[in-house]
């Protein structure tokens, strides 16, 4: 399984075999927002920015105009490594038949009461 840089996954640049002819384009960033204290940061979209500070500023303007977040992470898209979507089946399907990994697999006497 060869991991694919997320830029390809998200922007599909390499998949097309035609990288942008515009060298002056601001790099792409992925934006993660924590909607409220106690929750995970969640991927919510991407944007173009020249540097990390600008990416944070734009992420705030673009993705949290209605108090959708209490914290924002940004990361350059080309810095993320992702699993290969083409290998999805062979990578994730083997878990399908391992039902014994779930608590519901085990039938126990009612007397145990919510073990």
């Amino acid at each position: 399984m060869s991991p694919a840089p997320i830029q390809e996954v998200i922007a599909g640049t390499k998949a097309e075999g035609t990288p942008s002819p515009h060298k002056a384009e601001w790099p792409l960033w992925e934006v993660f927002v924590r909607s409220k204290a106690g929750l995970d940061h969640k991927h919510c979209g991407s944007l173009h920015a020249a540097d990390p500070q600008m990416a944070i500023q734009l992420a705030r303007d673009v993705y949290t105009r209605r108090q959708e977040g209490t914290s924002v992470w940004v990361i350059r898209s080309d810095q993320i490594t992702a699993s290969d979507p083409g290998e999805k089946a062979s990578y994730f399907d083997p878990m399908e038949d391992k039902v014994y990994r779930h608590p519901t697999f085990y039938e126990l006497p009612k007397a145990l009461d919510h073990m």
Partner: protein
Amino acid sequence: MYTQAMDTMGKEEGAPKAVRSADELAHQERFDARIDAGDFIEAKDWMPEHYRKTLVRQISQHAHSEIVGMLPEGNWISRAPTLKRKAILLAKVQDEAGHGLYLYAAAETLGISRDQLFDALHSGKAKYSSIFNYPTLTWADMGVIGWLVDGAAIMNQVPLCRCSYAPYARAMVRICREESFHQRQGFESLLTMMSHGTDAQKAMVQDAVDRWWWPSIMMFGPPDTESPNSEQSMKWGIKRISNDDLRQKFIDATAEQAKILGVTLPDPALRWNEERDHYDFGAIDWNEFWQVVGGEGPCNRERLAARVKAWDDGAWVREAALAHAAKQQPLKEAA
């Protein structure tokens, strides 16, 4: 509307090739099965070239519409009648910019760059919704755009939240969540003028309704009989409801809202048809629609010129930001 793209692209363009390898056919079969099962397609999944092209075309036109759509409204930011209305209008225009950005990002997942998308818009190769080529002459136009134009947009966009292409569907969910404020603020602004305004203000509202009604119902695109790509898009789950069905739904809803507002819709043929359980309406001037789509609307040149000027004038800022980022890089590595 924002899906006019599919009606303005020729039937030939991007049509599936006749000769295909066995490998491609197997991919095609798996893809079709996923679509039929109602699965979402993600960016890196295999997809037919025609599906990709159709999506790039539709999503980018949608994005361009959001961006160009800021111009008619931006016209009134400095002339809003109160601070409250100005704050509302600013928030709305900012939303349109955000919607454009969500959609450009979705289009980019299909392997086209932001600059290529802008080039297509600025060179006039790409289209945006015909509605934004009409002028905004009075303050009442702001309310009417919210009520009718955004109302039509919402009706068109809600089914797109279930579009088979996941990045587009996700963007649409976000957009629809934000868009409903646009329609409500518009209606409320008009209602304020109609119930507390002077005779002149009421006449201004009626005039705006008279000018925007027909262009608004044209937003849904040509009649189904003249929408050559609809069938394929329906099959692919890119389009969920036909142009004519959406238009009828919009007219049925709006005719009732007009009564509450106390305005007359400029169509003498508009009347409730009990048998059909729908409103009947008069003939639409499709010549006007095709003229505006073809570049001959009242403001086509002005809109595009404003957009190109903004992009060109901002070139030094984009370059300076990159130069600044490059300068900061070695400092950081040294630290």
